[in-house]
């Protein structure tokens, strides 16, 4: 396998957490809920995913439980911001702390402090018969773990849901003009709560992917800002699933590049190379935000009986 192929293969592998977390951010955001707890929910997903997989001896059950946990947090965010109209950012930050604290707590409770943490097996690669034999494209796209296929199919599914279905028409209207949606009988609160729950589940899945792909165990700091970068990716992709999918390649590319250059022994201190993903993200956002439209009601709560806001 040549250099280019293996690089691209790593990039596609690294795209998954970005895709999942950013699509989660997007689906909640399109309904108007601005979740800022990604980083914490990814930690929680990583911790829970690892611990459950270890205890029950299977990655699928780890993924499912992590997703359910993240969904619960997302549901809570949606519930308190729609029913009680509490500030989305404040609740989001509180959930970030709670999730981050819970992630470490659960790990310590189950594993304790040890120099040799137990490992879980990483996800197997599934080759797609026939397609994986295509030169370059085959190994890059069709010799990957099930989660890679899931992330790509999910992006396509979200595109169809948002733009081709009646549910999508309603969902987007809730994030653009909830009063208009409400006046036509669309259930604003329910739409927001379930979109937020789905978003939280995807964020936790993004976290659970990390121990199952890279380390085989949970370590503090393993999320390393990917959650915050996912928010950047949602903005960068204009809150549209197809562009988020494309944009995740850039974020993953930066991540893999930073690792590669460090390994490659370039004459730049590795500390500066480790800044690359974050600096590159800020640089790109300086110029990319001009065209990106955001949902008009993103981050704002809706009060049907408010007499001043319209």
């Amino acid at each position, binding site marked *: 396998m040549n250099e280019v192929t293996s690089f691209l293969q790593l990039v596609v592998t690294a795209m998954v957490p970005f895709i999942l977390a950013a699509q989660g951010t997007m689906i909640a955001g399109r309904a108007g809920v601005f979740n800022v707890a990604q980083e914490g929910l990814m930690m929680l997903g990583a911790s829970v995913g690892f611990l459950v997989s270890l205890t029950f001896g299977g990655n699928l059950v780890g993924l499912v439980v992590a997703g359910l946990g993240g969904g619960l947090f997302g549901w809570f965010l949606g519930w308190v911001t729609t029913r009680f109209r509490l500030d989305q950012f404040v609740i989001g930050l509180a959930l970030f702390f709670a999730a981050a604290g819970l992630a470490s707590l659960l790990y310590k409770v189950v594993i304790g402090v040890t120099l040799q943490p137990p490992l879980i097996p990483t996800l197997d690669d599934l080759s797609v018969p026939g397609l994986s034999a295509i030169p370059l494209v085959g190994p890059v796209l069709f010799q990957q773990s099930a989660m890679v296929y899931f992330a790509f199919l999910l992006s396509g599914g979200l595109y*169809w849901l948002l733009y*081709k279905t009646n549910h999508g028409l309603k969902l987007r209207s809730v994030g653009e003009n909830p009063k*208009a949606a409400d006046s*036509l009988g669309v*259930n604003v609160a329910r739409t927001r709560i379930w979109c937020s729950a789905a978003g939280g589940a995807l964020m936790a899945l993004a976290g659970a992917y990390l121990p199952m792909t890279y380390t085989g165990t949970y370590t503090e700091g393993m999320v390393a800002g990917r959650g915050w970068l996912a928010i950047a990716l949602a903005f960068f992709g204009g809150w549209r699933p197809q562009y988020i999918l494309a944009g995740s390649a850039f974020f993953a590319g930066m991540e893999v590049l930073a690792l590669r250059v460090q390994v490659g022994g370039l004459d730049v201190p590795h500390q500066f190379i480790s800044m690359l993903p974050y600096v590159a993200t800020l640089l790109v956002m300086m110029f990319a935000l001009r065209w990106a439209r955001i949902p008009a009601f993103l981050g704002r709560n809706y009060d049907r*009986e408010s007499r001043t806001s*319209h």
Partner: protein
Amino acid sequence: MTENSSPGPRPLLHMDGIRKTFGPVVALDGVDLTVGRNEVHGLLGGNGAGKTTLMNVLYGLYRADEGIVTLDGQEVVIRDPRDAISHGIGMVHQNFLQVDTYSVTENIVLGTELPSWPSMDLKGQAERIAELSTRFGLSVDPLATVADLSVGLRQRVEILKALYRGAKVLVLDEPTTNLTPQEVDSLFGSLRAIVDEGMSVVFITHKIRETMAVCDTLTVMRDGRRVGTVARRGTTPTELAGLMVGDDAMVRRVTEVVTAGMAAPVGRGPTVDAYAAGDAPERVVVSGLLAHNDHGVPAADVSLSVRGGEIVGIAGVAGNGQVELAEALAGVRPTAAGSMSLDGRDLAGSPTATWLDGGVAYVPEDRHRDGILPSESIVENLVLGAQRGRRFRSGPFLDWRRARQHAESSIRAFSIKAPSASTPAAQLSGGNIQRIILARAFSHEPGFLILHNPTRGLDIPSTQFVYDRTRAAAASGTAVLLISEDLDELTNLCDRILVVYSGRIVGERRRGEYDQYELGHLMAGLEESA
């Protein structure tokens, strides 16, 4: 007064004893309303009378504390708009409830249960909508994005929304705001067509003139109560004005508000006849002032001048550059070209604070968004804009004692109804918020006063208060620019009216030459004239 029992065997809609409170405020106090079949039913009253609240209850946007709604003789429970729609009620709100980024078709089908597999068939629905719009004289392109449509067309989309859902009762909330007189005629034509096809229309308005033009029956509301229901044929504008306002002493004081635009005004404002600004010096001179809208597109390009003591009106349909013009003249929006001077001092290009110091006072259109700090007290709201001036400052600190004294005297002078000077502005009614904004504008003795839709949404006494204060400012030598979408208000107050279309001034008329249809023609951009 003739209490009208509705025509036909059984009324189409009956609301009985509706009560609704918002916290401590009683918005509706046991209101009854009966709408017959095939009629245009006017719901008349000043702002704050509860007309819109009553209809929001009917449409399920507000939940009533008490009361019964009967449709076709059947009692119905309406918990949310979904229930209202399924019972055949449609409502066109004053602020259109549309998703700007959606097409006309998407806006109309939103909320229905169209099948999605394998994808939605929007094309078929577009055809159905086109058919509906021809039938009722409401033509609009079903594939256009609503953000690109004019106000008149967006209103048609709202009406089509209700018709598409098979509404039996169509409620229109102040539908003539922002329409030219010609568009109003076309709307009234469509309402007739709708009634002729077997539906009924509830027409909310505060203008007596409009109810006399289109309604069959009228219900008048005041202070959250129904004060009378009359047939149009059996009533007169004077009787309606009396019902709207209540006691006779008040009628005389606010008569110009309620009868605005009627053929024979009952009273005249105090300075109308004393107007003698014709040869006063020009205080404000604007030449070639160019302002862009939020998307960077040129939106207003005007030259004008205002003399001291003169009230100059800007007429136009909303969205023709009024916002950009107002903000540019107030120094809030950067100008791309041109100059603007007040008493010979050129202000263009300097920061907003310099304009304020220079004597420009601005009463913005959206008073909640641009005018107040909702969570802060009246004291703080009255300091806003003057915090760097010498008046409220001692050294680097603010002198809150002096600010409080100023607030208390303003509360008295402007009759602001508030428990105290430390009440947060958000707790006040729209009329009182507007009084705070006026108090702030007048406390600096402005040389140039810009008012943008200053009476929108105000109750009758507050509207009259704004008119009186505006005239008093002009009488003391201030140059006043009144930007309004209410032609009646403009013809009543202004010495001169400039008509704006697409950001340019397309016509000018002086007092004595006003003709609403002619002005409407100019506002629609149908005629270039000087």
